[in-house]
């Protein structure tokens, strides 16, 4: 399957972060899709998504729950978690997570991680 730019979905309740992440991803050549909550992502649907980046602490469904749900539907979808608190340890233990970043995170590292998983999935796929 060939297509254009890979699509990266971003979920965060903070609009500033959502905006800056989308900008960063686009500057790196990805197509960014922003969602202010887990629910709005689920409504929109997961098809066409290549990578998911989600905040952990959000009102309503948190990042862990969203991750579990997404894994049931798209086990192959790489998921990155980002957090503002000390939930890294817990995030590390979560199954099927491609990576976890603590705010403020290093943009270069993140982009590199994204590039890695996309390459892996392309190879694997």
């Amino acid at each position: 399957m060939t297509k254009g730019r890979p699509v990266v979905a971003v979920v965060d309740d903070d609009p500033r972060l959502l905006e800056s992440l989308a900008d960063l991803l686009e500057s790196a050549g990805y197509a960014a899709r922003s969602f202010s909550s887990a629910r709005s992502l689920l409504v929109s649907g997961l098809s066409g998504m290549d990578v998911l980046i989600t905040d952990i602490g959000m009102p309503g469904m948190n990042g862990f729950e969203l991750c579990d749900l997404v894994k049931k539907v798209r086990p192959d979808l790489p998921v990155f978690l980002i957090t503002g608190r000390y939930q890294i340890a817990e995030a590390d233990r979560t199954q099927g997570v491609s990576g976890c970043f603590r705010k403020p995170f290093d943009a270069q590292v993140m982009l590199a991680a994204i590039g890695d998983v996309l390459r892996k999935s392309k190879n694997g796929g």
Partner: protein
Amino acid sequence: MMSVWSRRPHFLHLGLFIAAYVLGCGFAQALAIVPGTGISIWPPSGLFMATLILASRHSWPWWVLGGCLAELFSNALWFHNPLSVALLIYTGNVLEAVAGAWLVTWACRRPFRLETLQEVLTLVVLGAGIAPVASATVGSATLAWFGMQTFAAAWPLFWLGDATGVLIVAPLALAVLQNCGGRTQLSAARWMEACVLGLIFLGVAALSLSGHLPSAYIVMPPLLWAAVRFEFKGAAVALTLLALITVVFTISGTSQFVGDPEFQKQMQFALQLFLAISAFSVLTVAAVSRQHQQALLTLRDSERELSQLVDMVPSHVWRLRPDGEPIFFNKRMTDFIGLDVADLDKPGMSRLEAVIETVHPDDAAGFGDALRRSLAIGESFALRYRLRRADGVYRWMSSRAEPLRDQDGRIVQWFGLCHDIDNQVHAEEALRRSEQQLQQMIDAVPVRIWSATPTGGPVYFNKRYQDHFRSVIANFEAIEEPRIEELLQELIHPEDAPEVQRTLQNCFETGGGSSMRFRWREKDGVYRWAECRVEPWRDQAGAIAQWYGVSLDIDEEVRAQEALRERERELSQIVNMVPVHIRRLTPDGEPTFFNKRLLDFFGLSDVAQLDKHGMSRLAAAIKTLVHPEDATRLLETVRHSLATGEPYAMKYRMLRADGVYRWVDGRGEPLRDQSGAIVHWYAISIDIDDQMRLYRDLEEREAKIRRLVDSDIIGIVIWDLDGRVIDANDAFLRMVQYGREDVEAGLRWFDMTPPEWQDVHAREEAEELKATGKMQAREKEYFRKDGSRVPVLIGAACFEGQSRQGVAYILDLTERKRAEAAQMRAEEALRQAADELAKATQATSLAELSASIAHEVNQPLAAIVANSHACHRWLSAEPPNLERAKTTAERIIRDANSAADVVSRIRAVFKQSTQTGSCTALNSAMAEALDLTAEEAARRRVRIDTGIEDDLPLVALDRVQVQQVLINLMRNGMDAMDSVQGDRVLLVRARRMGDVVQTEISDRGAGIEFPDKIFEPFFTTKGTGMGMGLAICRSIVESHGGRLWAEKNEPQGATFVFTLPVEVKAVP
């Protein structure tokens, strides 16, 4: 036969008759001068005839039988005739007597009294003349048949003998028989005359019959004298005497009628003739005399009667001579004036003048003139005048006089009649007066009266009526013969006039009375109500004689009635308007009226709808409309009241039209008339359903309150602000150990209040009560009766509308106070534990706070980092995307500012809390902080040495924040000594240094490399942590006006020092 027997005469009379008959026979035998030729006088014929005349015809057979016996007896004694001859002769005698008696009584009618000439002549002609024919004929025939005498010779003697016997004996017998009952009293003079006459008669008779005088008829004068003077009795007696004398002389032979045998026959005849003529003459004269006497007697009687009549009439009767002189006054007049005619003779005046003098002086001249004028011209006289009575009183008289004229027209006398009319005159006067009074009365009474002829013609009006007409009708006087209905039309209101006209005409036509009401005009032009009653007055025959009408002014009455009706209407409206059910009952309880409200309540349109067959309306109404539980009681109550007349009052439930029972308060009272008898019952009922509900609620609430008061759990007092206890329940009394008698004697709560509370009461409690009407519950104390104190909780409230009285509840706090003391001790322990807990919380909360701050700062920081990379990428791209880079850079600036805001917000939070801080003893705050960390220190084998001055001054601080600083610094110290192998000692010191209190926390750790950098946010030397703790600590200290810094410790470790300014003056 029976009738004959029953009509039998007295046997005494019959016996006397028989004896007289026999005696008569003997007398006849004695006078039988010529033997064989029969007898000269036959007295029994007179006796027999007289007896039959007087006896009733039915008794005649008895007399015939008696006569027969007497004659047969005499025949046997003297005559010696054969029986057949005797019977035949007697038959002749019976015929004669019966014929004579029948003829006489037929001719004269009974009773035959022999008092008139007609009766005498009848007796002579029919009794003595004709009747003896029968006897003579039968007797002569018998004698001739038996050859004793020739018929022709015997008949005349026979006839004459019988006739003489009748003439002499019948008057005598009649006189004797008729007068045998009554005695005629003769006066002495008459007796003398009778004796003298008797002597003269006897003498003359003796002389003449004895032949000494030439003729026997010389005896006639004395006979006639006796007849004239003594009438029939005299005549009868004289004739009898004459007959006897004649017999005596004849028997003695010296009589003139005794002579030679050849003349004997003639002599006998002459004797018979003499006796018959004498008897006839005497009887006739006696009858004439008798008749004359009778006439005289009658005249005298009538004169006496007339005189009596004249004296008896209730009038004065008088006679005058033609020239006016009085000649007769009747007795009444004489008695009245006290004068007789003779008494009028006075010297110097005529009798007439004397009469005039007795007339009242006022009337005398008129009387004299009128009488003289009548006398002069011969006209009858009539006048009323007053005449003086004998006792001097004048009385009114009415006098009339008429002249009596002779055949030539000349006046012979004047007859006058005069009656006492005094009473009449007075009565007339009284009548006139009463008529006058009546007229005055009729004119005076305040009613209008009229009367009219039967057809309603000309009318009489009383004065008031006339005045009324005159004042209203302009030309009243000019109306001739006014009719009542026409006049009334002038007066009466045009609306009423036709009806009145009709009614009146109807009355006059039918003759019935009537009553009308109408308005009529008064003189001021105002119409007033009047009533006119019309009635006919009928005479004895029932015909209408007069119409009478009475008109009354009833204006006020009519208006009053109208007003009354108006009031009644109003009252009726009120009755229907008042919010009360009203009903009226008859004295025996039958409802006759419901007011509208009640009808509406029941949904009825009329009381009669209640009627049920077979029960009274009252019972039906109660059964239908009253709640079944109340119906019986109500019926009994009402019936009891009806029977006794007592009012009743009762509450019961009535069925409203919508089917709901509602409570009403019902009452009934009788209305009585003046005699006390019940006219009506009035019953009312008021809907009290809501009220009842309210009462029930109220009762329930009161019961609850009462339960509270009576439960004696809390003390309740009713008080006034003057310090008195008005009432108190037992619980309160028990509390203060007083008795009820103390309350009654006047217990004062003010006196029971300890002095320190009295003041409070006066200032606060009273004010509070006055202002709000309530006193919030508060604790205070009261003196008990024995002087000990009882702690109480008291709350109070004024009664509604009464600011000086109210109710208070009082709880005995003795037990509670005791419990509280124990509880306080427990609480103290609890509080300590809580404080410890709080300190533990404070210890962790700073870390928590740091995490939160980190998150707040990380968000913008993460955005900044991402944007910075993005910006760099847009710029590094070939060709560089400047547009996007610029946008991104703007975002970086924005987010950075946002992060700075977070920090300044945190500062502001700490600053704010210091401002609300209070003056606190630093010692205790530090002690608490040490307590909180003591356990942790022990766990981490850190010894904490303290050097804190005892008398540290008060410092204005936020206790918790300062404790956080302390704990944070101590924990940092402990953290620094984690890796130290030697003694882990943490030194905490606090001392006053001028106007600050300086606190130092020293550890024996590795020490600090950059004493200035460590206070910057996010600078940390530790493996974990945010690097915010010291930044916050400095921020807190600085917000308290102090300083925080770090110093190197010798030989190792670090010392953190902070100062807090001492408050100059304490806050009171």
